[in-house]
């Protein structure tokens, strides 16, 4: 199971912060400095027969609202106790206390020696919080002074990520602009993509030989863009297949992909004017399990001997097993994935391979619609920006570092800032 792909869930977390980030408010920032208002906390855990080790408290404790969030965080920072040393330290840690709306102090976290920040994520808007940090020795605890009460704020726009927003808008704008241009009838050139030139030929070959076509849409679910791309290609391929009257078979490893695949093929057959030739049996679910699915598909390949295999979508370790088996039964194989780790195997074992971005370009390319071609042109703008940034960046950073020219170094810093995500 360790080889099984991780679902994209952790990514949602990033997204979460992202969506958030963009949603605005302009709360004033409030910083509460510690005031001289000592708190009495009884020293804890007296150990008999040993002298109490009293350590110095932390200083300059600052509680500040966390920037660009929903108002659920407060950042604390302080200067560690002077007894907190790397070697032979008398400090064994810190405790962070919080006082909510002038209530009782409550210990919210224990930190390691050397810590000088804490991020309290369990605060609510509309309440006042003040904090103090106490320094722990082996048998005693020294509290710091207490901060003034502070209320967490909500901001509506994360200005730190403004550059990402702008870049995304530039790219999105480019794509939309070229789609519009194409829609108005301007002809756009798109270079040949070898694997896609072969699609017609591959389907024709299956027809001649009277053998089926196998379509494998990867092993991830509908929440992966590669699967979407594979299904859009399936739409075009199925259209041609319907015209040729060849058999298509699509074993899948996800129930949702099964449903979506059926819809796609059905639509293509309808568009080709042959809805009667469609049957639900063209798409079969096998199992969600990576290698169980592969075992079954291998069996199908050997028994049905397809003339053509499409392996398009998200693949993991199974890529080579499928491609080698397909190769051994003499099928023409057109593969494509955006998983860099699996591309070498497809290159080695398949006749044509759509490398990374080509997979996403494929459906646009196959459709031949100007609108879709326009989006490809938009992608190219993105690449041009990336290339320019790399070129300028490397030149300036090299020159700037080698000859220590400050203004050139500033260009680099600016450039890197434009592309930094945090």
């Amino acid at each position, binding site marked *: 199971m360790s080889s099984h792909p991780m679902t994209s869930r952790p990514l949602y977390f990033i997204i979460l912060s992202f*969506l958030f980030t*963009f949603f605005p408010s302009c709360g004033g920032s409030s910083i509460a400095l510690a005031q001289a208002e000592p708190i009495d906390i009884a020293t804890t855990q007296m150990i008999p027969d040993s002298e109490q080790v009293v350590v110095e408290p932390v200083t300059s404790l600052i509680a500040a609202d966390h920037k660009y969030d929903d108002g659920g965080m407060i950042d604390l920072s302080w200067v560690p106790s002077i007894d907190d040393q790397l070697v032979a330290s008398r400090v064994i840690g810190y405790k962070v206390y919080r006082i909510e709306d002038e209530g009782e102090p409550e210990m919210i976290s224990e930190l390691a020696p050397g810590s000088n920040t804490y991020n309290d994520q369990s605060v609510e808007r509309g309440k006042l919080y003040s904090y103090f940090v106490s320094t722990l020795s082996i048998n005693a605890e020294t509290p710091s002074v207490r901060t003034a009460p502070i209320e967490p704020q909500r901001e509506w726009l994360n200005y730190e990520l403004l550059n990402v927003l702008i870049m*995304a808008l530039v790219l999105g704008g480019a794509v939309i602009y070229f789609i519009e241009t194409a829609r108005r009838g301007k002809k756009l050139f798109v270079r040949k993509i070898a694997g896609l030139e072969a699609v017609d030929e591959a389907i024709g070959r299956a027809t001649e030989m009277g053998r089926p076509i196998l379509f494998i849409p990867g092993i991830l679910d509908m929440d992966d863009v590669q699967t979407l791309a594979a299904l*859009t290609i399936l739409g075009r391929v199925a259209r041609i297949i319907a015209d040729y009257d060849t058999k298509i078979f699509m074993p899948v490893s996800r129930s949702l992909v099964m449903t979506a695949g059926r819809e*796609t093929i059905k639509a293509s057959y309808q*568009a080709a004017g042959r809805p009667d030739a469609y049957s639900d049996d063209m798409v079969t679910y096998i199992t969600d399990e990576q290698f169980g699915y592969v075992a079954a598909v291998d069996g199908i390949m050997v028994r049905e001997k397809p003339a053509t295999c499409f392996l398009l979508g998200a693949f993991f370790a199974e890529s080579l*097993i499928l491609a080698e088996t397909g190769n051994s039964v003499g099928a023409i194989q057109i593969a494509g994935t955006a998983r860099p780790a699996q591309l070498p195997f497809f290159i080695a074992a398949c006749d044509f391979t759509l490398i990374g*971005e080509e997979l996403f370009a494929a459906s646009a390319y196959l459709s031949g619609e100007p609108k879709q071609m326009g989006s490809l042109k938009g992608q190219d703008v993105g690449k041009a920006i990336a290339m320019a940034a790399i070129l300028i960046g490397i030149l300036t950073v090299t020159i700037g570092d080698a000859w220590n020219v400050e203004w050139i170094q500033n260009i680099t810093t600016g450039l890197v800032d434009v592309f930094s995500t945090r």
Partner: protein
Amino acid sequence: MFVIQYFIPHYPFNRMSHWFSDWFAIILACAIVLGALNLMKISIQKVIKKKPGWGYAVVIIASFLLITIIGLSEGEGFREPGTWFDWLYVYVYTPCSSTMFAILGFFVASASYRAFRARNFEATLLLLAAFFVMIGRVPVGDIISGFMPEGARLSNLASWIMTFPQTAGQRAIMIGIALGIVSTSLRVILGIERAHLAGE
């Protein structure tokens, strides 16, 4: 439908992605019923019509029912060691999946045998890179090149290839992929690409 698609990603809520993953999980739980029923339907059809290989279809049905019934009846703690479900997992599921994975060892060899031929310049590069990295990563490599100065030994060459040209290629691919995804997503959101939605 278009409106749903358009608005969801921009819906200004921090809970949004949480919800999405929760909802998605629930939809999946329902959808797998469809998948499982489909698998059963096809297997049962095979058995009834006595198509070739119907005996294996019986095995599929039997093993499917076995683990499902055990798993559902054992309650929430179905995964704890000592349950029957766990037994099936450890002694049936695991050997199968790790063997299937291990088969790759064979396929890696046969694929290299067939594919790594110096057909043209590109293929030669592919071959050479694979060759040096492969041999540079076992002790044999350093025994062969032991006479060379430290920096030019095969293991160092292998790691140089991995660190530099490999990184360059990966980076180009990654940037391309990301742009491709952005553009595909945009096409879906703008409703230009609707093949998966029965072309409404």
